[in-house]
């Protein structure tokens, strides 16, 4: 049985090869989200010492390189290390408000994992430079780290569901507490009048999160899992102050798609095969 499973596992995971376009799109998307998340906090106008100026300049230099795809993998790695540095040192050790949050960790780990993909082989200055040398490098490469991003999303759903699997959450009490803090004195306070609805919402969220942990990895279920997952994150985004968490998770959903299908889809919508669409 293991002999039959192992080749499939290797082909799915560590030996997985495919189009680099989804990884490149994630690189660009994550870089833009990091700009939005840290723009105000790490920018130079906030600096209180020359060291903070230097760190800010370095951070935005690597982040810009990641965005445009110049030395893409190095830039993504340095950006990821910088974010995780802010998470561990600034957030966990120095208690800077907001820096030890899950959405910051997710941005850091996603950047590091992207650095392990050939994320500069598409949509990048790196590619442009190679084309300038007369070469047309293939938009293909080993995507084992893209599979790791998928596993990270699966783990995230599973463990957050584990955390919610207790009476306090399933009965709606924890959600009511969250809503009391968030909605008191605001229009959505009306939610608090329906404890049964809160219990129903709580149980639904937990069931969906357990299901997503598996369904996003199963090709047959993915066509249902992706809209459900995007709907879940959109709901979180609209109803709770989740910062960049929802948009980061949705961006990382690119890691769940068949990269070659994404490649063909982009070709199709850009009309690459249609002469009338060429300049």
């Amino acid at each position, binding site marked *: 049985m293991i002999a039959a499973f192992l080749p499939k596992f*290797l082909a799915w*995971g*560590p*030996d997985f090869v495919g189009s680099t376009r989804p990884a490149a799109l994630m690189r660009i998307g994550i870089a833009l989200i990091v700009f939005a998340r840290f723009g105000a906090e790490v920018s130079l106008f906030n600096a209180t010492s020359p060291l903070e100026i230097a760190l800010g300049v370095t951070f935005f230099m690597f982040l810009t390189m990641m965005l445009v795809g110049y030395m893409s993998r190095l830039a993504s790695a340095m950006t990821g290390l910088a974010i995780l540095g802010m998470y*561990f040192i600034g*957030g*966990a*050790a120095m*208690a800077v*408000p*907001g820096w*030890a*949050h*899950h959405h910051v*960790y997710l941005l850091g*780990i996603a950047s590091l*994992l992207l650095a*392990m993909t050939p994320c500069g082989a598409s949509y990048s200055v790196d590619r442009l430079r190679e084309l300038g040398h007369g070469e047309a490098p293939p938009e293909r490469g*080993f995507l*084992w*780290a893209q*599979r*790791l991003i998928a*596993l*990270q999303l*699966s*783990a*995230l759903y599973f*463990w*957050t569901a*584990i*955390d919610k699997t*207790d*009476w*306090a959450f399933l*009965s709606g*009490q*924890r959600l*009511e*507490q*969250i*809503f*009391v*803090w*968030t*909605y*008191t*004195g*605001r229009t959505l306070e009306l939610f608090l009048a329906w404890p049964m609805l809160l219990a129903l919402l709580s149980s639904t969220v937990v069931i969906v999160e357990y299901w997503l942990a598996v369904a996003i990895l199963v090709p047959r279920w993915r066509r249902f899992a992706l809209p459900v997952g995007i709907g879940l994150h959109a709901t979180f985004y609209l109803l*709770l*102050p*989740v910062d960049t*968490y929802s948009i980061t998770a949705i961006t990382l959903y690119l890691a769940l798609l068949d990269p070659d299908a994404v490649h063909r889809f982009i070709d199709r919508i850009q009309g690459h095969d249609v002469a009338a669409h060429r300049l």
Partner: protein
Amino acid sequence: MLVVRLGAISRRIAFLAVAALLLLGPAPGQIFGAHSPFLREWIMFAGVGIGIPKGVFTLHAANGAALPLTPPEVAGVTSYPQIRHYLFDKRVFEDIDIKRFAGRICDQAVEGERLSFDGFIGSRLGWRPVSVDDICALPDPVPSADGESGT
């Protein structure tokens, strides 16, 4: 050929190692309570709403009149501030912390007035019933040392 094989082997080892970290990293903290900042736990919003009261405060005047007050009225807010929840310094973790939540009323109370509370306080285990007859007579609470739990 040897280089290709070594590359494949190292890639497979790296994949398994990182996958194990991502999939099992939260287990020590979330199952066994062995928390480490280096093993991210996925406990989003687990701290939001903790320490916030739900119930009725009552201001008893010296002449026996009773004025019911909502928790936001007692805290002096129309809605809770849109800040990180752990920066709200009025959260109630022990019963005596409710004096900090009601500090504004206690500071303004005149001789003979009494502030009581009957309701619940948000906790990780659900709503915790709390009933305090004379909040302002409680000893002063120590400052909260709660960190960024449940982020």
